[in-house]
């Protein structure tokens, strides 16, 4: 069984041209309107690089410093633009190095197409040099993948790849192409894929579910909206805002949903989950109706499942039927694309304000402000806090920056305190929690949206996981702002060691290099701040820079992120200290 299903189309009717498989790959990318790709060359992908050389005026190939960096850059590109990100690598280690990025894109529903070279087909299965079964390896972490061994199959495989990656619930796709297929000549033509018979990207909304949902919404006394990235992926921000405002319902977000509704919106009651805000976590267990929109009830959001919103009815707006009832039993599932379903439900819901209920959120916010937020963003004690750095960036970027974070304490602090005025502004590794994501993802984001201010925020640990991508920033002249919040610890693990392992700081203390010197080694402007009085001016200098700029801020060593829902606890057992 070869990849026979992809040669069933009649291509003879169209104008064809005799070209090589490798040229076809590049021509397919051009046909899919791809302008930038991220990758790293190597033996089995060299024919494609040769064609990329010829087509360099059409496609800009960005040489990463490691294939993982290429994958994350493609993700960052996709997340800020809504377009499919493309990464390319050679066989064997090139392909396996992509896997972390692919797994990250899978769990965070990021549209990405990865193209890997493969050893010639006659060597498949022979343990040839740089041979690895990347299709087998990537199967559980891709939305779809395939191996192509004949040039004639390339256009249809790539057309399917782009269609699958971007449609429905997006995800990563991998196409592995043997070197002989790259060399082989064939009659090329390209037709975009718009349909696959076994694949239903957007399920039909079941009749009556919109009405049933509207009935619950109109009857609810204490409804709570919890939204996720589905709102962003469906480009449903306007419909979502209209829905929230008409229904007058407090709305809280998962970290991937952040920025779909401006932070300053009066009905935005903050972040859900383990390090989210006090009010939405507490009141999840008090609401009478939970309206989940484009989110998947991740365990970091729900805490202990059997004590999660048991008192509430649940409505789930969802594009992926497999998510319905997966973690939380729903009363009404509204299947479909959020943009369409939110638009359709709007006329069915009554205007409301839920003032008394909303007041409960405000009251709990005041408690959180006094106990946590004030100390985080207006500290008076010695030692800079991560929160005050984020606050300064908010002020100086006027909330217009796209914030790209890595994983750990700085990520939670950034998500909690960053102000977002526009959508697609919070780019982070949510589901997989991939340290090392931030820097390369920020490269992709800045290149996809050069007009936007892109600020990457990392910890000292994660920054060093993909620090080599400074080379990419330098070579490509990416005008990216980089902030490292350095607490000389793997802070989040250290916090857990402090709280749950009696302060046994096993392998979390970092003896760090001179970051400024390293960054300057790449000819990038760099500065280090250790005192509060220098912060404002340093952030101003960073923001004013036309070129890439690196700012290291030495923050307190043992700062903790609160509130916190400890693992295994219910969301209403959220701790403020």
């Amino acid at each position, binding site marked *: *069984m070869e990849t026979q*299903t992809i040669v069933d189309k009649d291509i003879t009717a169209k104008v064809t041209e005799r070209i090589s498989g490798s040229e076809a790959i590049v021509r397919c990318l051009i046909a899919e309107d791809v302008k930038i790709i991220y990758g790293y060359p190597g033996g089995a992908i060299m024919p494609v690089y040769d064609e990329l050389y010829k087509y360099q005026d059409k496609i800009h190939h960005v040489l990463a410093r490691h294939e993982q960096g290429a994958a994350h850059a493609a993700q960052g590109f996709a997340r800020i633009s809504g377009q499919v990100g493309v990464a390319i690598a050679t066989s064997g280690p090139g392909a396996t190095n992509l896997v972390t990025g692919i797994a990250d894109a899978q769990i965070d529903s990021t549209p990405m197409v990865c193209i890997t070279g493969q050893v010639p087909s006659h060597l498949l299965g022979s343990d040839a040099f740089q041979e690895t079964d990347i*299709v087998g390896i990537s199967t*559980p972490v891709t939305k779809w993948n395939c191996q192509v061994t004949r040039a004639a199959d390339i256009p249809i495989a790539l057309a399917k790849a782009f269609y699958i990656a971007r449609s429905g619930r997006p995800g990563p796709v991998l196409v592995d192409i043997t070197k002989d297929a790259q060399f082989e000549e064939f009659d090329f033509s390209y037709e975009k894929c718009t349909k696959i018979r076994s694949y239903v990207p957007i399920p039909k909304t079941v009749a009556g579910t919109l009405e049933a949902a509207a009935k619950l919404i109109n009857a609810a006394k204490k409804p709570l909206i919890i939204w996720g990235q589905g709102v962003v992926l469906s480009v449903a921000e306007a419909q979502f805002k209209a829905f929230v405002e008409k229904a007058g319902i407090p709305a809280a977000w998962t970290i991937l949903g952040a920025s779909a509704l401006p932070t300053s919106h009066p009905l935005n009651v903050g972040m859900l989950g383990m390090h989210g805000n006090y009010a939405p976590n507490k009141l999840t267990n008090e609401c009478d109706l939970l309206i989940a929109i484009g989110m998947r009830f991740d365990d970091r959001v729900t805490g202990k499942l059997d004590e999660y919103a048991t008192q509430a009815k649940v409505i789930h707006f969802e594009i992926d039927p*497999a998510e319905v009832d997966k973690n939380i039993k729903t009363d009404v599932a509204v299947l479909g694309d959020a943009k369409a379903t939110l638009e359709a439900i709007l006329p069915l819901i009554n205007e409301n304000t839920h003032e008394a209920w909303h007041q409960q959120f405000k009251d709990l916010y005041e408690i959180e402000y006094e106990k946590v937020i004030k100390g985080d963003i207006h500290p008076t004690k010695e030692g800079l806090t991560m929160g005050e750095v984020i606050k300064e960036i908010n002020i100086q970027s006027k909330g217009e920056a796209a914030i790209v974070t890595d994983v750990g304490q700085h990520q939670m602090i950034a998500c909690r305190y960053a102000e977002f005025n526009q959508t697609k502004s919070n780019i982070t590794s949510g589901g997989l929690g991939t340290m090392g994501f931030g820097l390369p993802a920020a490269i992709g984001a800045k290149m996809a949206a050069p007009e936007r201010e892109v600020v990457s925020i990392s910890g000292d640990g994660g920054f060093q996981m993909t620090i080599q991508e400074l080379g990419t920033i330098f070579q490509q002249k990416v005008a990216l702002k980089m902030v490292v919040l350095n607490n000389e610890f793997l802070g989040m693990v250290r916090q857990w060691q402090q709280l749950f392992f009696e302060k046994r700081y096993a392998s979390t203390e970092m003896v760090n290099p001179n970051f400024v010197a390293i960054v300057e080694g790449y000819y990038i402007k760099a500065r280090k701040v250790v005192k509060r009085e220098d912060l404002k001016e340093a952030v101003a200098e960073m923001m004013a820079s036309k070129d890439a700029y690196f700012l290291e801020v030495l923050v307190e060593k043992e700062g903790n992120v609160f509130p916190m829902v400890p693992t295994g606890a219910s969301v209403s057992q959220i701790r403020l200290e």
Partner: protein
Amino acid sequence: MSTEKQLFTISVYTENNIGLLNRISAIFQRRHINIESLNISPSEIEGIAKFTIVVNMTVENVKKIIGQIEKQVEVIKAYYHNDDETIYQISGLFKIKSELLFEEPQIQNIIKESNARIVTVNKEFFVLEKSGKKEEVVALYDQLSVFGIMQYTRSGRVAITKEEMKISALLETYNNN
């Protein structure tokens, strides 16, 4: 009741593509679900393959598994049924020394009573084939093992549902969408 495990036959209609077996089996492996039996064959529709998977799990979990299976791009539809809702068979093959046919005359009665079929006979051995429910094949094994069995193997379950599976109609709607 729903927390009780029971046998389910999962029927999956798919495109006949390389790699799909890996993709589907990974769904079970990741969740530590042991596959009791697996059979892949052509289905009633040309070009469409049918996986017949037998698992022992709760209704709640089998529903989730169906969701995960149907989520795969090349899966057309997946169903689950309990044993009352399906007509199912397995097949067992037994290789036995030919001399036993004469030395142990009860064997001939066992063959007759069990409705087993002799597939081949030669001087050294004969091969018995028994189709039926797993219990029937196992019962025959138990009876014959007393005399010594040279080789024994059992197939995966094949099943037909009492309910109609409208795959052709489904494909039609997909094609027209």
